[in-house]
């Protein structure tokens, strides 16, 4: 048993391990991998977008310095950025669609997930939108503000100042140029003879009017003479190209060119001689140069650059605004989608363990205790999952133990049932009758032998009190026994019992035992009884034979001397005594001795009754022969012989059977006073393998007391006869291993039933 239990435990453990292996992959590995991949993709996209944005920023700072074409690089970068952003959007939408689909399918946990996602989105969307619109507004107002302030005016004014500086310089130069041109023309200084005078004049003019330089060019653009201020003397001073000189002169009569030299900006105003003529008609050209100090020149150019830049920015105001909006929108979108995706992720991490737990609980509810949830989190939900796993494990172990106990119990039951059946079989097959009663006197069991002996059906008497079943003398007897058992210390009682069952006399020896439990409490009683009828009969028969033999022996011996003595008396004294009385007496003695001899012979024949010598023979002819003997002598009795079936050949002692039949028919005739009928029927019972002979008469019948003693010797209801007839019949039938019993013939008379084995 112990070994078997161990084996069972081992099986359970193996089953558990298998189950656990099965449930460990509750979330399929593929699904886990897919989720992990999604997370990695999303994070890398965000990282790449951030990196690209950073790089773009750097490139913008480098400006045109980096060798690669900015345009193409930026184009590529921005497109990649856009693509990645789209990918992120795609991921988010995919999750959204999945969530909607799950909701439609009513997948467990979607409601919670939706709620969480909505909460996360709302939480992230609200500040993002507020910030976005605030930023847009801020940028718009800022840009408007930049362009609204009077910077433009200031710049324009300073530019005007610069312009007027140039204009004034040119105007002054023009003023002097007009005079100089007039002087040169009137003094005819251009004549080749007056070359020196021209040089002198030029130098004088330069000194007088404090020009930085003054040059005179011939009409063929060669420089005739020039005069320089001391600050330009040691510097390189180039001629003006012919092209430049030949260019059209505006209506105001002068044209100004400027060039940068190390010591500042040189402003040269070109005029013609005579003043106002076209370059083609000019006799010569006058150039007055003024040097603008370097710091002033620088300031002028910075004013110019500042204005330029301002103009350009103003030109690009709208595009800049648009750019800001676009950038801001992209960033906002990125933030929104990132947060949405993060919302999905958080919702997933929160709702999945809950969903898994809920599914596990559902499965437990359906009776599947093999649920084991893989660790999905390391927080409180993780603890919950752990507790759940422990609970299901405990439940599982408990159930397995229960199963084991039930199995053991079943086995024990089977064993008990087997024992019970065995006991029942034993009881059924035991030759003694067994009847048990409970403490209240109700019959609880009755075995087959008891049923057979008492000719009762157990279902008719089970669970009934003996007080109801018995009456009269038997009830008294039973109550006496009960009382005895209860009162006496002795638990057992033994008593002989004689009963007539269905008209058959039966003799039993009954053992009654009180049943007591371990505590000595009365539980009922068991009655065991043996059928002693046949045994008693045999014993009585043997006793009677012994008696008969002795009587025959003891009585027969003196009979012959008595008879001989009587005959001798008669012979010797008959002639002497002529008394008829004498003769009569001797004759009586002789007759009665003969009668006694007959009686003794009958005794003797009973005592020395030969044992049967059966041989196969037909039964019906024997009966027919028997009946033939009586039919003639008893015309008022109707003899009937019924053979119902084919009677098989039996092992019979023909002579003895005939004797038995004669005795029985004789008996029947004796019971019929005047008219009547005797019916003999033979039937074959193939099931019981017997042949049943019934001899029924409608005579006076036999009393119950008579029935019990009918087959005993010297029991006779007739005046004549020794009462050995039926005893002999009984002996013959016993010798043929058969059985004889007497019953009442309904409605009148008696019926002898003989059963002979086939």
């Amino acid at each position, binding site marked *: 048993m112990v070994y078997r239990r161990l084996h069972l435990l081992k099986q359970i453990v193996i089953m558990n391990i298998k189950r656990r292996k099965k449930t460990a992959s509750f979330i399929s590995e593929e699904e886990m991998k897919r989720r992990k991949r999604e997370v990695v993709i999303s994070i890398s996209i965000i990282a790449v977008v951030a990196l690209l944005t950073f790089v773009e920023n750097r490139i913008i700072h480098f400006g045109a310095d980096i060798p690669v074409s900015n345009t193409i690089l930026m184009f590529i970068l921005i497109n990649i950025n856009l693509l990645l952003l789209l990918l992120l959007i795609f991921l988010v939408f995919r999750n959204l669609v999945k969530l909607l689909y799950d909701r439609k399918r009513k997948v467990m946990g979607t409601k919670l997930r939706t709620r969480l996602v909505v909460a996360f989105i709302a939480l992230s969307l609200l500040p993002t939108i507020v910030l976005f619109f605030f930023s847009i507004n801020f940028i718009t107002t800022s840009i408007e503000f930049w362009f609204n302030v009077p910077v433009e005016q200031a710049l324009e004014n300073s530019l005007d100042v610069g312009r007027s500086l140039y204009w004034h310089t040119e105007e002054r130069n023009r003023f002097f140029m007009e005079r100089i041109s007039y002087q040169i023309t009137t003094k005819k200084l251009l004549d080749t003879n007056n070359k020196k005078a021209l040089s002198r004049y030029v130098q004088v003019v330069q000194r007088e009017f404090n020009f930085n330089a003054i040059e005179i060019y011939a009409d063929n653009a060669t420089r005739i003479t020039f005069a320089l201020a001391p600050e330009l003397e040691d510097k390189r001073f180039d001629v003006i190209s012919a*092209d430049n000189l030949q260019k059209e002169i505006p209506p105001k009569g002068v044209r100004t060119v400027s060039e940068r030299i190390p010591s500042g900006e040189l402003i040269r105003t070109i005029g013609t001689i005579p003043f106002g003529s076209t370059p083609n008609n000019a006799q010569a050209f006058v150039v007055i140069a003024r040097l603008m100090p370097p710091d002033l020149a620088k300031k002028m150019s910075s004013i*110019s650059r500042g204005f330029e830049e301002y103009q350009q920015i103003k030109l690009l105001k709208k595009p800049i605004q648009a750019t800001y909006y676009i950038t801001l929108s992209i960033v906002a979108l990125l933030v929104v989608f990132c947060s949405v995706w993060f919302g999905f992720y958080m919702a997933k991490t929160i709702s999945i363990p809950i969903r898994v737990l809920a599914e596990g609980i559902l499965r437990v509810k359906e009776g599947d205790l093999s649920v084991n949830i893989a660790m999905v989190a390391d927080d409180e939900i993780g603890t919950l999952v752990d507790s759940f796993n422990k609970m299901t494990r405990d439940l599982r172990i408990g159930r397995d133990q229960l199963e084991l106990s039930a199995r053991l119990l079943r086995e024990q039951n089977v064993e008990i049932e087997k024992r019970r059946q065995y006991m029942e079989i034993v009881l059924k097959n035991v030759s003694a009758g067994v009847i048990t009663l409970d403490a209240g006197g109700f019959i609880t069991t009755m075995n087959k032998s008891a049923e057979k002996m008492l000719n009762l059906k157990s279902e008719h008497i089970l669970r009934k009190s003996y007080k109801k079943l018995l009456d009269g003398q038997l009830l008294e007897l039973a109550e006496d026994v009960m009382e005895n058992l209860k009162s006496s210390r002795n638990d057992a009682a033994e008593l002989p019992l004689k009963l007539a069952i269905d008209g058959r006399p039966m003799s039993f020896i009954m053992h009654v035992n009180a049943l007591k439990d371990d505590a000595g409490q009365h539980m009922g009683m068991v009655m065991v009884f043996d059928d002693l009828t046949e045994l008693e009969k045999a014993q009585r028969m043997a006793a009677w034979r012994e008696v008969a033999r002795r009587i025959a022996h003891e009585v027969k011996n003196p009979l012959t001397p008595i008879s001989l003595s009587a005959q001798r008396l008669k012979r010797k004294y008959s002639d002497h005594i002529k008394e008829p009385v004498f003769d009569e007496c001797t004759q009586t003695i002789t007759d009665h001795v003969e009668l006694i001899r007959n009686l003794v012979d009958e005794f003797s024949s009973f005592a020395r009754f030969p044992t049967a010598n059966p041989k196969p023979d037909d039964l019906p002819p024997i009966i027919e022969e028997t009946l033939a003997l009586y039919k003639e002598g008893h015309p008022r009795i109707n003899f009937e012989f019924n053979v119902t079936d084919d009677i098989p050949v039996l092992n019979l002692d023909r002579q003895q059977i005939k004797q038995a039949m004669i005795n029985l028919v004789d008996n029947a005739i004796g019971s019929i006073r005047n008219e009547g009928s005797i019916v003999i029927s033979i039937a074959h019972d193939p099931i019981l393998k017997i042949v049943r002979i019934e001899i029924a008469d409608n005579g006076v019948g036999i009393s119950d007391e008579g029935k019990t003693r009918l087959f005993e010797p010297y029991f006779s209801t007739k005046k004549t006869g020794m009462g050995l007839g039926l005893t002999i019949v009984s002996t013959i039938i016993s010798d043929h291993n058969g059985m004889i019993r007497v019953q009442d013939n309904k409605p009148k008379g008696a019926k002898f039933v003989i059963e002979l084995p086939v």
Partner: protein
Amino acid sequence: MNRKSLVLLFGIIFCVQNLAFAQNATLTNIIVTNTRDDLLVYLNVEGAFTEKMKKAISSGVSTTFSYYLSFYQVRNLWLDNNIEDIKVTNTIKYNNLKEEYIVKRSWEKSGPQVTKSFDEAKKLMSEIDSLKIVPLKQLEKGTHYQLRAKAQLSKVTLPFYLHYVLFFVSLWDFETDWYTVDFIY
């Protein structure tokens, strides 16, 4: 969102971006001629100056036109033989202080041309005059030659980060098709 719609979306994005660059600039009056020693080309670009570009130039934005000239010897049943590739640039810059336009032409030996008139500056920017392509001695008599020309706005120098702006808003970019002139020497 399935793959098809993604492809469609990207297609639209690229098309829109390309459309932004399209302007109707053309090359006109392409004349190939020769001096005693050299082969010369004359050409004009028309429709290059938009209102916005004029505004930008007068705001002091330095703008460069690039001219691409390729000279081929045409060969039947074979790839044309590339004899010469020339790229020249015309750059304009407005000086608001002196209210004059300075046009610098890379193919002219003399320095930048200065003019007060925008029309003149425009003319200077959009024409190539007597640009030497190859010496005549490189050419063979009776051979089929081809000159291919194209003009485009190659560079607009904006201050600071404003380059960046152009990626979102294209203002004045142009690029002409390739124009070809065939002749037999």
